[in-house]
């Protein structure tokens, strides 16, 4: 009450109030639509709770038994599968996206038909993942057009059975993820580069900087927050990878469960409405996600010096 008398403090309080007001809708909606389901998920991870047919077993409190069971299974394999498939798809995705974003925003290169290219590269994302997987399945099947062309060209004598091989299956999943997401990443990076003050480039140009130098020394440092965003959201998307491998492998995640991702494993537990194990899997997944994301976030937005040094090293190579 007394604060109103002091103009300085009144200002602070009223602005803080705005801060709370601005974030209120987000948190209200979050509490209603996400927090309760999320808490019940974690809660049930400590229970034996599933369906046997239509009969509900439990819930019976069993402490950490679900978790200890979980670590006796191949959980780490599935985490490994997920991360491998994410990384193999993500490396070309970010490389191509950076390259394209740099080309599109490079005034000197002055590419024509940019509007067309920019529009087209995002388009695979418009196709439903399930439809996309159906098309891929048809393209790469044993008697599909890809095998047909390779045989016609004399590269293969027998059709290559993509989905019977670990490399083939994982490769296709990574390729699909790459195609679906590189346009998205390019758009994000372009939006970031577009926000960079053009005065900086003009000044650098006057100083005789090359395109390469400008890209590495001006663009990259300034779009770092968006890069962090791309990396983190892609990591989260990668850890939650589901529909593409699910539909491409017909729900089996084979060969030898090498295409089984964390969420597919979670989905297997949902088959019997096993809220206990499913809860445990998602709690673990949630913790892994959170740790990785915070790691990435703090590395990307961490001390500038160390990052700058790293980058310089990179340029000289």
């Amino acid at each position, binding site marked *: 009450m007394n604060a109103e008398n002091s103009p300085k403090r009144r200002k*602070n309080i009223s*602005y*803080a109030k*705005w*801060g*709370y*007001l*601005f*974030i209120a*809708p*987000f948190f209200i909606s*979050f509490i*209603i*639509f*996400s927090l309760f*389901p*999320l808490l019940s*998920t974690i809660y049930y991870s400590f229970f034996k709770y599933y369906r046997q047919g239509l009969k509900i077993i439990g819930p019976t409190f069993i402490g950490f038994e679900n978790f200890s069971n979980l670590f006796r299974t191949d959980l780490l394999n599935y985490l490994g599968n997920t991360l491998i498939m994410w990384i193999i798809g993500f490396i070309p995705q970010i490389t*191509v996206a950076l390259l394209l974003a740099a080309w599109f925003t490079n005034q000197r290169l002055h*590419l024509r038909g*940019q*509007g067309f*290219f*920019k*529009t*087209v590269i*995002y*388009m695979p*994302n*418009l*196709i*439903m*993942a399930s*439809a996309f997987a159906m*098309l891929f399945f*048809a393209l790469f099947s044993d008697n599909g057009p890809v095998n047909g062309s390779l045989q016609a060209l004399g590269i293969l004598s027998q059709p290559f059975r993509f989905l019977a091989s670990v490399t083939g299956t994982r490769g296709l999943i990574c390729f699909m993820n790459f195609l679906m997401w590189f*346009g998205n990443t390019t*758009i*994000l990076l*372009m*939006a*970031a580069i577009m*926000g960079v003050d053009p005065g900086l480039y003009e000044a650098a140009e006057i100083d005789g900087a*090359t395109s390469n130098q400008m890209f590495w020394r001006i663009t990259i440092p300034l*779009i770092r*927050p*968006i890069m962090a*965003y791309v990396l*983190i*959201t892609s990591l*989260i998307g990668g850890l*939650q990878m589901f529909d593409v491998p699910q539909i491409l492998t017909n729900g089996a995640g084979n060969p030898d469960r090498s295409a089984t991702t964390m969420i597919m494993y979670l989905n297997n537990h*949902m088959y019997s409405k096993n809220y206990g194990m499913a809860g445990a899997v*998602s709690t673990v*997944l*949630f913790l892994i*996600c*959170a740790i990785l*994301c*915070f790691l990435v976030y703090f590395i990307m937005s961490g001390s500038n010096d160390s990052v700058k040094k790293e980058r310089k090293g990179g340029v000289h190579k």
Partner: protein
Amino acid sequence: MTKHAKSGKGKLVTARAVSYFVLAILCFLCLFFFYMLLINSSRNNFQIQQGFSFLPGKSFAVNFNNMLKDANLPVVSGIRNSFIVSALSAILATYFSAMTAYGIFAYNFKFKRAAFIIILLIMTMPTQVSAVGFVNQMQAMGLRNSLIPLFLPTISSPVVFFFMKQYLDSNMPMEIVEAARIDGSSELHTFNFIVLPIMKPAIAVQAIFTFVTAWNNFFIPALLLDKADKKTLPILIAQLRSADFLKFDMGQVYMLITIAIIPIIIVYLILSKYIVRGVALGGVKG
């Protein structure tokens, strides 16, 4: 990659050629799948099952008519429902995420750091597992067979928020806000009329992403919607795919997928123009 540009022009020409070549390959890959969809929607079930062909079939009209004739397949209301959900999701997600991001970006308050970290944590939660709890709760709230639970929760879209926050971090000068305050603009007014226009490129980008995600979402809508007049397009497609052997028709499935993709392409083209134009917008600032 040397710093000494001997013949700058020659290098530029090569660079351009390489860029066009790479872009052409990528565009071919991207557009090829639309071509495949179109081809398959013009072929009949047995042709599709016999393998892919690069030439269209003659069943386009037949597939189209079969799809329209199916009374259990309310395509028109499906498009309408999908459109309502996707448009509202895009609007709510972008507006409130921008607002939340700005709230955390521009103001100092006690739980600012905590709020930010909580949102980051939320972002890492997979949607699949809380789905069952979500559906039970919606049923208890009487929101089954309603479109509301499909768009209202997008008010809290941590991923969109995070993008907005990062965008503000790299593009929003606080001086503009200070100047507005001196001019006597209220905080909400400042946000709506000064901050939002600056965030336009970010909003357009996220509006597309949210729209597309909502348009293609099958998982949650399938759990919530039973009534024919409330179903969205992905549910109708799934319904066609589980048709019985007498009516199972991949031609129709592909036709519906093609039909479902047209509105989203239109929306995308409208918004993408804005992204392409955004280059100029970025240039004005500073």
